[in-house]
């Protein structure tokens, strides 16, 4: 702990379309320490997935990524060539995608798909590769891995496929795993299994994890720190405890209150009025101002700066729900 693994500074990803420029990610900065789990939460369209693709430089035309720096183990990913990035993807940073039904190739066996990773990122002979495949499948909790090697993805259920994907992501012992909504497509009981597994693996393998999800409850169970995104910006970032208990941004508060609770009786849910603004026509000033019940004149004109409201806890709001000071 304590060593910065990833440091993203002023990341911007803009999509230049015929209808105008979409600022999917607009100047976000965050960092991740070794062994840490960072949760990025936000509603659809808030730019959380684009952030993860941008780190790996997987953004295609008409998208353009700009950043001051994306430091990974002290190296600037942003200035790396495509050829060098190939060595980073999968080996150093690997990704787990949302949809376990479509992120495996239906035409190859599980073994072939895991081996591909081992061929690209390691010096194994055939026998070692097979052994490693079995070891990986056992690690992610697939029963009788020896017999399942020759199976095709369609012979697995959703939860099992997600396990295979996690096995592939772990194959080259990456330092950082980015999981984009890894359990959204799964049932709750299976979700609990997968989340537990991921947390264990991250601790045991000494990797770090960026968990991207729309589900605050999932993130609060998993992450050490949470960043809340809205319209391409991080509106609040802090330790999980601070975000849940000492909430500073009205949007985070609204999100927390709109979740029905299992152990509380509420007559009505508090709702955030309106909806996420059109990305082509973002409001001036604070992006959340039109939906915010605390918004004042100033919010509509001036974009809020980051305010430090606690140790390692910052928020971008003119009138945070907690006292703080502006850091220049």
């Amino acid at each position: 702990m304590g060593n910065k693994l990833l440091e993203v500074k002023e990341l911007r990803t803009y999509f230049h379309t015929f209808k105008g420029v979409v600022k999917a990610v607009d100047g976000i900065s965050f960092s991740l320490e070794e062994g840490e789990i960072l949760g990025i939460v936000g509603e659809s369209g808030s730019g959380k997935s684009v952030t993860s693709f941008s780190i790996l430089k997987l953004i295609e035309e008409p998208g353009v990524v700009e950043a001051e720096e994306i430091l990974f183990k002290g190296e600037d990913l942003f200035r790396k060539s495509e050829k060098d990035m190939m060595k980073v993807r999968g080996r150093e940073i690997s990704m787990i995608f949302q949809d376990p039904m479509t992120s495996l190739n239906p035409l190859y066996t599980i073994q072939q798909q895991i081996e591909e990773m081992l061929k690209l990122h390691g010096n194994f002979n055939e026998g070692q590769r097979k052994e490693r495949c079995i070891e990986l499948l056992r690690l992610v909790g697939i029963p009788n891995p020896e017999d399942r090697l020759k199976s095709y993805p369609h012979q697995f259920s959703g939860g099992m496929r997600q396990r295979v994907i996690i096995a592939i992501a772990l194959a080259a012992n990456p330092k950082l795993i980015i999981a984009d909504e890894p359990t959204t497509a799964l049932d709750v009981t299976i979700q609990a299994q997968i989340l537990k597994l991921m947390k264990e693996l991250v601790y045991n393998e000494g990797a770090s994890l960026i968990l991207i999800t729309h589900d605050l409850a999932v993130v609060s169970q998993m992450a050490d720190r949470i960043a809340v995104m809205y319209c391409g910006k991080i509106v609040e970032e802090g330790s999980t405890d601070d975000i849940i208990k000492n909430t500073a941004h009205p949007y985070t508060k609204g999100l927390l209150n709109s979740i029905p609770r299992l152990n509380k009786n509420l007559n009505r849910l508090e709702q955030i009025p309106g909806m996420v603004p059109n990305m082509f026509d973002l409001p001036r000033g604070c992006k959340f101002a039109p939906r915010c019940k605390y918004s004042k004149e100033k919010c509509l004109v001036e974009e809020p700066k980051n305010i430090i409201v606690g140790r390692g806890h910052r928020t971008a709001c003119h009138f945070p729900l907690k006292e703080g000071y502006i850091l220049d």
Partner: protein
Amino acid sequence: MIKLLEVKDLVQSFNLTSDFLDKLKLKNGRVTIESRVVNAVNGISFYINRGEVFSLVGESGCGKSTTARTIIKILEPKGGKILYKDRDITRLGPKEMLPLRKEIQMIFQDPYASLNPRQKVKDIIMEPMLFHRVAANKDEAYNKSIEILKKVGLRPEQANRYPHQFSGGQRQRIGIARALAVEPELIIADEPVSALDVSIQAQILNLLMDLKDEYGFSYLFIAHDLSVVRHISDRLGVMYLGCIVEKGSKEQIFSNPLHPYTRILLSSVPTIDEESITDSLELKGEIPSPIDLPSGCYFHKRCPFAKEICKKVVPQLKEIEDGHEAACHILLGEEGDRDNEKKGYTR
């Protein structure tokens, strides 16, 4: 209380091998005849009182949606009875069902797929009105549809737009408006909020509750999200492999879950409050295939408490307290816990 809808031992199954050629299978070099049937709903019973919200919860593949579809007879029931206002509607033909379709409406899960992309919003809402003669002519229907749009939180000028011009939450509002158009008594909502973002989900849940208070609807609410179900229901049934394993009032089920499956389901739900998911009861394995159902209790292979009897005998629903029923050989109430502790099972 008056029972609006009652379902008795409802059975639904799908024959995968209705064609003779499908039945032929090559096994160990021999051709054998084998028929495979998906047993989607295996004899479930419940009732909904007037003005009540009854929910069916369960994981994917447990038969919740099939139950809903069978009740409104999009699918013909294979067994059991459906009583609506004490009238047996199980064997009614399509023509006889027509007047009932006005009284029972459905809200679908996917707000993108359940609206006709080539119809304007006003037409989507006016069509059922004119068909069921809720409105005498087009003008009246138009005026009514504007009223309904306001009710569900859309602006009157949006009536002339097409579905693609709306966001997911707004489309779900249109779906709700369409259900309201014919002044139904029972609304079957099949996962109405699962495709929506949390902030929008809260808006739609509040809207559904407000409408219920205003019009006195009854809901059959189908969902996989236990916290949503807890928020909206009066009573609920927990489904597993086409059976209701436990049913009762919201308070009964959430404060004193009896069936092991209900308990595990409850503890798997991630919450923002203290309790950590890493300490949750873990369910081993996955739902068995509904093609070959397990013997005895359908849950026994995954149940941490299963005993010999569970493998052989199918447990029946037993009433444990007033209106609270569970189907399990080893009932896990407080007494069950004490029993299990004695025998060395610990949670």
